[in-house]
C-alpha cells in the first residue's frame, strides 16, 4: 500500500473511533435543540427553547447549586486530607504503611452501590442521613483515593535536595513547606481538586441512597425528572453539565497532564 493510502486509511479509522466515542454526546447535543416535546433523533426544527426551559426550572437550578456546593466543599476537604495523607504515605517510615495505603484506596475498589448501602447504615445512627453534611462526607470518602494518588505522585517526584537546599539557605522547617514543598505540589493539588469536584458532581448512586430532600444533587434531579417526563430539556441540561465539566478538565490538563492524573 502506498504511504498516502495508508495515511488515509489510518485517519479514517481514527475518525471512526472518535465518532463512535462521541456519538452519544453528539446525539444529545442535537436533540437538545429540538422543538418537539419528546426525545427523538434527528430533530425536525431547531430552537433554544429547551435551554430556556432549563434555566426557568428552579428545581434544576437549585440542584445545580447544591451539586456545585457539595462538589466544592468535598473537593477542598478531599485535597486537604489527601495531601496530609500523602505526606504520611510517601514520607512516613512506620509499620503498617501498606495497610494505610490500602485504606485510602479501598473506596475505589468497592462498587458505589455497595458503598452506598454501607454509608446509609453508618450515617443513619449519626443522624447524618438525608443531610448535606452526610453527602459531603460520603463524597470526601469516594474522592480521597484519587486525591491521595495524584498528590502522592507529585510528592514522590520531589527531589529531596530541593528541600535540603532550602534549609541550608536559611529556611526553617515551616518555611520549607510553605515556600518549596507546597508550591511544587500546587499543580497536583489543583488537579486533584478538579478531579474530586468532577467525581462529586457526577455521582448519582450514593446521592440517591443517602440524600434526601435537603440534598438533591443535579444527577438526582435529572433522574427524578426523566422518571416522569422525557423531553429535550434533559438533553439541554446534559449539554450544560458537559460544558460545566469541561472547565475543570481544562484546568487539570493545564496544571498536570491529564494522562498523568488518571493513568497509572
Amino acid at each position, binding site marked *: 500500500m502506498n504511504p498516502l493510502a495508508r495515511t488515509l486509511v489510518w485517519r479514517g479509522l481514527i475518525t471512526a473511533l472518535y465518532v463512535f466515542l462521541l456519538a452519544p454526546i453528539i446525539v444529545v447535543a442535537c436533540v437538545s435543540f429540538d422543538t418537539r416535546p419528546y426525545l427523538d433523533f434527528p430533530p425536525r426544527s431547531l430552537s433554544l427553547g429547551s435551554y430556556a426551559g432549563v434555566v426557568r426550572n428552579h428545581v434544576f437550578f437549585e440542584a445545580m447549586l447544591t451539586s456545585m456546593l457539595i462538589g466544592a466543599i468535598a473537593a477542598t476537604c478531599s485535597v486537604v486530607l489527601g495531601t496530609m495523607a500523602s505526606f504520611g504515605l510517601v514520607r512516613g517510615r512506620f509499620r503498617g504503611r501498606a495497610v494505610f495505603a490500602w485504606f485510602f484506596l479501598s473506596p475505589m475498589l468497592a462498587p458505589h452501590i455497595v458503598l452506598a448501602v454501607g454509608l446509609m447504615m453508618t450515617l443513619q445512627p449519626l443522624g447524618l442521613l438525608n443531610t448535606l453534611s452526610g453527602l459531603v462526607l460520603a463524597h470526601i470518602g469516594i474522592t480521597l483515593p484519587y486525591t491521595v494518588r495524584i498528590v502522592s505522585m507529585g510528592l514522590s517526584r520531589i527531589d529531596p535536595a*530541593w528541600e*535540603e*537546599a*532550602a534549609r541550608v539557605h536559611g529556611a*526553617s522547617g515551616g*518555611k520549607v513547606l510553605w515556600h518549596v514543598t507546597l*508550591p511544587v505540589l500546587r499543580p497536583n493539588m489543583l488537579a486533584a481538586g478538579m478531579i474530586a469536584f468532577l467525581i462529586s458532581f457526577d455521582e448519582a448512586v450514593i446521592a440517591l441512597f443517602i440524600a434526601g430532600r435537603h440534598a438533591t444533587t443535579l444527577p438526582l434531579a435529572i433522574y427524578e425528572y426523566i422518571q416522569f417526563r422525557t423531553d429535550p430539556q434533559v438533553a439541554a441540561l446534559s449539554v450544560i453539565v458537559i460544558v460545566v465539566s469541561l472547565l475543570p478538565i481544562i484546568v487539570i490538563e493545564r496544571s498536570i497532564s491529564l494522562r498523568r492524573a488518571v493513568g497509572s
Partner: protein
Amino acid sequence: MAETIPPAADAFLHVRDLTKQYPGSPRPAVDRASFDLGKGRMLALLGSSGCGKTTLLRMIAGLVPPQGGHVMLGGRDMGHVPLHQRQMGMVFQSYALFPHMDVARNVGFGLEMKGMPASQRNAAVRRMLELTHLENLADRRISALSGGQQQRVALARALATEPALLLLDEPLANLDVKLREAMRAEIRALQKRMDVTCLFVTHDQDEALSTADEIAVMSEGVIQQIGTPQDIYERPANRFVAGFIGRANFLPALWQRPGWAEVPELGLLAIAEHERWQGTRTLMVRPHAIRVRMGGDMTDALRACTGHVVDLSYTGGRYGCQVRVGPYLMETELEAGTRLPIRGQEVQLDWPAHRTRVLDGTP
C-alpha cells in the same frame, strides 16, 4: 585515641573527629575526619567514588548528624546551631534549583528567608546575576536553562547571602570538559573576590590540583593527607596518596646507607632520605622526573639503570614510554619532538635523588 588537637590559631573552619556510620554499613562512611581551614581559603576534598566526601560535606552543612566530633565556624560551635541558621551556601551536585521559581527568585531565596526587604533584595540579586553573567536570564524558568547556566544559578544562589562558608559538592561533574575548565576558573575568581571560605568536593585530581589552596585526599572514609597541591603531589604522605594523585613508579627499597637505597635486582639508587629504616619500603618516582637516554656512554653509571622499551604511546604533546628494567616496568615520559626510541631499544633511565620519595609499606 589521640587527644583532641586545639584549632590552629588562624583556623576559620575547624573540623575535629567527625564520624558517621550509616546503619547497616560495616565501616564508617567518614572516620574521624579532622582539618582546619583559614579564612578565605579553598579546600578540595578529593577522593574516589564512595569514599565519604559528600557525607563529610553534609555533616559540616548540618544535613547529616555526625555520630562524633564537632565543627566550629568562626569560633562558634555549630553543634547546636540549627541547619538553617548556619549561614552556609551550598551548591548541590544536582544543583537542586527550585523548579517553581524563576532565576532571580532562586538567587534571592536565601535573602528572602532572611527577611530582607524586596527593594534591597532585588539590588543584591542583580549584583549576583551580574557577577555570574546571568543578567539576561533573570526571568527564565529553571527548566529552560542549560546545564552550565543552571550551575551558575546554583552558585549565585549559594553566594547571594554572603555565606560564612561555601560548600560545593562536585559542582562541575555534569558539565563537559571545556565548560568545566571555564567554570572552574570562574568559581575560583568569584571565591577570591568575595573572600569566602570554601570547601569543594571533587573526584577529579586535575580540578583539585589546579583550583584549590589545599587538598584533603580521602580514601574509605579516612583523610589520608592534607596539604597544598605541591605538597600532595611532590611529598605524598603514603602509598595511597602517591598512587591516587598523578602517575608514579613504585620500587621496593631497602636501607643501604644515608642517601642510598638498595632496590632488589636493580642495585643501588640515590635517594633524598637520610634516616635509617627497617625492612622493605617503597621508593616513588614520578614519570616526568625520569630522564630517558638512548645509547652513548654512561657518565654516572651508578644512578642510571638500563632497560628496554616495551611500549610507546602518544598522549597529546608527549609520549608515554614504558621501559622494562629488570623485573620492573617503569613509566616514563618523553616530549614530542625529541628523538624517540623504538620498541625493544635499549635505553638508560636516571633521575635526580631529590625527585624520589620513600614511603611506608611495600609497593
